[in-house]
């Protein structure tokens, strides 16, 4: 692939005659349990070569219940991996998936940017996660992430969630997460309900609630969002929907907004 790198800003086209990109990739095809790809990408601009990168992806299925996968992007200018992901999924039965992932990133800038010469910290993240579908009516998930920054300001994130379908026309989704570290605390989640009382009508409602502390000076603050919506299918080509929302947070005691949509399929 390749071509001119066209960039627009508010005043019109901002690219110049030397903005080009090109790349090439080769991937493995025809092997059922393996995916692999190698790629190269170059971006050119006024200063010369702005980006010069290699990429690789890999996936391998093993023993009918294990998936290994990886993804890498190597920056040839700084000679470092700008992104690296390695993961494993274990699925002993079809309704249970255990996931472990390790990811790291190192910010890369165009060589023509002054920011490309500065030292930056490497970001790393480890993820452990379980997704389990009990039956047609319920599924649950739980996860833990540890975010590691270069200078000791690590963050822990815990999350749990569930999807319930107590009766056919009703679906409930609940999720909660707790994030703590780097002087911040974020504690909250959301609940959503969808209900189809009759065939052409769908109703939905939701609540999101967060208690958070940006740093010790700010103290704890609360943010909430409530929304309610509905869609009615008039016939095969026409639907109408309505949605209203209220935000309550440190900026607004109430901030109502809404939208009404009429769709006609030509």
């Amino acid at each position, binding site marked *: 692939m390749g071509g001119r790198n066209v960039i627009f800003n508010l005043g019109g086209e901002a690219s110049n005659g030397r903005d080009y990109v090109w790349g090439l990739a080769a991937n493995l095809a025809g092997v059922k349990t393996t995916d692999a*790809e190698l790629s190269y990408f170059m971006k050119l601009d006024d200063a010369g070569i702005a980006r010069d990168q290699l990429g690789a992806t890999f996936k391998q299925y093993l023993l009918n219940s294990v998936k290994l996968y990886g993804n890498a992007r190597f920056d040839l200018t700084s000679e470092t991996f700008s992104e690296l992901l390695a993961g494993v999924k274990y699925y002993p039965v079809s309704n249970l998936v255990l996931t472990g992932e390790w990811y790291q990133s190192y910010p890369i800038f165009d060589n023509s940017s002054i920011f490309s010469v500065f030292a930056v910290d490497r970001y790393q993240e480890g993820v452990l996660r379980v997704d389990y579908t009990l039956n047609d009516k319920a599924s649950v998930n739980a996860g833990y992430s540890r975010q590691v920054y270069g200078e000791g300001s690590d963050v822990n994130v815990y999350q749990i969630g569930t999807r319930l379908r107590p009766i056919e026309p009703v679906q409930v989704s609940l999720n909660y997460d707790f994030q703590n570290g780097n002087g911040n605390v974020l504690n909250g989640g959301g609940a959503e309900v969808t209900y189809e009382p009759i065939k052409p009508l769908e109703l939905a409602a939701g609540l999101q609630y967060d208690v958070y502390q940006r740093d010790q000076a700010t103290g704890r603050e609360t943010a909430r969002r409530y929304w309610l919506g509905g869609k009615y299918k008039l016939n095969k080509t026409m639907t109408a929907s309505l949605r209203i929302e209220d935000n309550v947070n440190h900026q607004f005691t109430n901030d109502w907004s809404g939208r009404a949509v009429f769709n006609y399929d030509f």
Partner: protein
Amino acid sequence: MKKFVSIIVVLSLGLFCLQQKSYADKKVSHAEYKDSALSDCNDCHKSEGVAPNHDADFLRGHRVLAGRSNKNCNQCHEQKWCLDCHQGGGTGDDLTKSNFGRDYTPKSHRSGFVSIHPIKAQDNPQNCYRCHDAVAFCNSCHNRFPKGSLRIKSHLMLGPNAQGYNFITGEHASEARRNLQSCQTCHPEGDVCIQCHSSGKTRPHPRNWKAGNIKDRTNAKMCLKCHLPGTF
């Protein structure tokens, strides 16, 4: 570097050999299963040894699936289905799509994201920039604030009349190393950085700085922003 290139060459040869060995073993087309229930998909996947997907973790993990060159997303989804989230903001790509429910934003964007984004924006620095342009998107709000009001530690005002910055202290260094893209949001040309970090003052480069690589690729234009000709 030579070692890395050697590894790439060996891997490429390995790929070529594998491809020659079992090219006949084609992957299954999913087009005829596009209307199946996800539980049916998972049962079939499991029996074939393929990992179940499209689960509650799909939003986080679909980047890796969709990034593969031999991806088969288009056997069930048209491109407009992707664009409905990635570009359109959830207006619904057809009449069967709901646009009355939760807005099409990641779950991390909940509760009026303006409130909690100062915390979430400090997570994985790459995440924001996968969808948003650092300079155009962030700065469209941030440039409306008076300097020093953003609660960035290094930008808090000091002194009896709050007329000075404290960025000389160590805070700005650790903040910049942690998320340099956020600096670029308000200082796209980095002029404020060069005031102190230009030649001979405070070295900004990483320890394993590959000066030759950037010099070759930009015909030394970048080096001349701070260094005098012949001094680097």
